[in-house]
């Protein structure tokens, strides 16, 4: 069953009176119980895509230029405010990168979770406390009766992230969007949080959209991967397939730029240049100019193709999509 279906979505932002594209024509879907990872460098549009799923982007400056988002069979972009609130309450949960910023510093964590529980329609106010304690227990916080009285600053980063997860689970969502959930945490704590997310997925048969720039985490957790570059989706496939058999030159470069344990003698490959800014995205393939494959195909004809026209999003193998003129 498909929980989220994003179809040819484009989002633009108004900057200094000019509409700049943040994401362009992206499509992906998430099935029930599946973990889908969105990977890419900063500024490639992964967070914008996530916020768009529950229409959390402020409009203006944002604008949904074209395409549609289907969440739970409803088209999110055409919903009225009341229906949107319903979606946000019951169907989708968010965890953000910096837990210390996402929590309100002046309220006890128990009260903050209780607020999220009470928003749910079927919640009864009498046993909110028990439900909060149960949620904390599920996210692996020891001594939850005591912890509900703590303020966020009294907890460590890992604990704060667990509180965020408890809040996201309070509405019993079908899909959890985790936007760089472990970037601010140590590797050992990161391992704890990733384990917890896997466990929750298994117990509740929930779907997770995992946004990250760490390809190691992707290989570890995700069932499917969508690679983004400069507002475009450039490749998507099953994790195993993508790791073994990357097709797009950007994915290939990204994979070889990651330092791997036990291979310290090899020199790291780098991608020359920097990501273009939305104000001057090239007309053709957005990766043109940094692409090793285009360089190889230097014959005048092919170069023009990369420079002038955006490659189609085509299926090169069953379930393996790629946006490149030349990879096969």
């Amino acid at each position, binding site marked *: 069953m498909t929980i989220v279906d994003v179809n040819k979505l484009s989002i633009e932002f108004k900057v200094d009176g000019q509409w700049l594209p943040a994401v362009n024509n992206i499509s992906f879907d998430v099935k029930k119980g599946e973990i889908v990872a969105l990977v890419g460098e900063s500024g490639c549009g992964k967070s914008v895509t996530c916020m768009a799923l529950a229409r959390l982007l402020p409009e203006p400056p944002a604008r949904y230029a074209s395409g549609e988002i289907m969440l739970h069979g409803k088209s999110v972009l055409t919903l009225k405010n009341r229906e949107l609130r319903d979606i946000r309450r019951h169907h989708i949960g968010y965890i953000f990168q910096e837990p210390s910023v996402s929590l309100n510093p002046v309220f006890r964590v128990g009260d903050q979770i209780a607020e999220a529980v009470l928003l749910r329609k079927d919640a009864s106010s009498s046993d909110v406390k028990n439900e909060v304690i149960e949620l904390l227990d599920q996210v692996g916080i020891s001594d939850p009766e005591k912890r509900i009285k703590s303020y966020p600053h009294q907890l460590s980063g890992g604990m704060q992230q667990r509180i965020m997860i408890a809040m996201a689970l309070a509405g019993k969502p079908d899909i959890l969007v985790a936007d760089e959930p472990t970037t601010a945490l140590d*590797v050992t*704590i990161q*391992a704890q949080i990733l384990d917890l997310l896997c466990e929750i997925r298994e117990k509740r048969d929930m779907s997770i959209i995992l946004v990250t720039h760490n390809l190691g985490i992707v*290989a570890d957790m995700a069932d499917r991967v969508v690679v983004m570059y400069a507002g475009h989706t450039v490749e998507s496939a099953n994790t195993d397939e993508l790791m073994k058999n990357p097709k797009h030159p950007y994915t290939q470069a990204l994979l070889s730029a*990651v330092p791997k344990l036990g291979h310290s003698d090899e020199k790291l490959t780098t991608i020359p240049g*920097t990501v273009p800014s939305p104000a001057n995205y090239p007309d053709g393939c957005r990766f043109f100019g940094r692409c090793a494959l285009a360089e190889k195909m230097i014959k005048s004809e092919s170069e023009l193709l990369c420079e002038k026209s955006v490659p189609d999003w085509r299926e090169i193998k069953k379930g393996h999509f790629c946006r490149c003129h030349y990879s096969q």
Partner: protein
Amino acid sequence: MPLLTVENLKTWYPMKKEWFKPQEFLKAVDGVSFTLDKAETVGLVGESGCGKSTLGRTLVRLENPVAGDVTINGEDIAKLKGNALRKARGEFQIIFQDPYGSLNPRMSVLRTLDEVLALHTNLDKQGRYMRMLELIVMVGLKEEHLHRYPHQFSGGQRQRIGIARALAVEPEFIVADEPVSALDVSVQAQIINLLIDIQEKTGISFLFIAHDLAVVEHISHRILVMYLGRIVESGSSSAVCKNAKHPYTQALLSAVPTLDPETRKKRIVLPGDVPSPLNPPSGCPFHPRCHQAMEKCKTEVPALKSVKGSPDHQTACFLE
């Protein structure tokens, strides 16, 4: 003879003193010893709050140690003061983690670099400009970049400016405090390669602080693993990464997410957080989180000892 020798270094911060109670200290670095050779990179890993940044900052005298010696080329810099310290700063420099926070937004790159050169060298204006050109090219930027301000650069470029600033005075060694943690993978690879190139060209030594073991293994000749202010394991990077002896190092290694789906191993997930250094556990500081802890670990502190058969590889654990 090693370039840098650190002997039993302690950096303690005094806590607020209460009446009729003895003064308490937060022991951020508590008895650390190691050496660093010329043209060598030593990696320093550990979780946040283990004291690795404090150690790095103490080595360049941004923090003052309460005890211990730091010797560079036979000169003890741990007790230098005033003018003598300012002169000695030409030998050691630091690159900071946050390329956004460590450059003055009101100063162009030219002024940032010129300030360092004017302070530490006897070059005239023309000479300083030539030196700046040399530096900016060395870190992979162009002359036109000299006249720009920090906000006009990307994160990776800013980190390059931070590196140029550290290199300006031709130091003997540089402390690189998490220089790549704030960067994307592709940029991270560029900066790591840049540091390796600079070392090959100039024979500079690095203390490379990071929390990502894969990055550290890639750049370092030797690795130190730190936990709660002490070194728990040290050795060549291949010995530490392939044949880790301390349970903490093993857990750190297994927590690094790997790319290859087939070698995904069962992670050793450490329970809990790093204990507060204000109130460290008795005995081995790691015992409450260690899955192999014994009775003995709760009372006695294991000393850093060589592993049988390889004198360079040391670990502070009773199991060995």
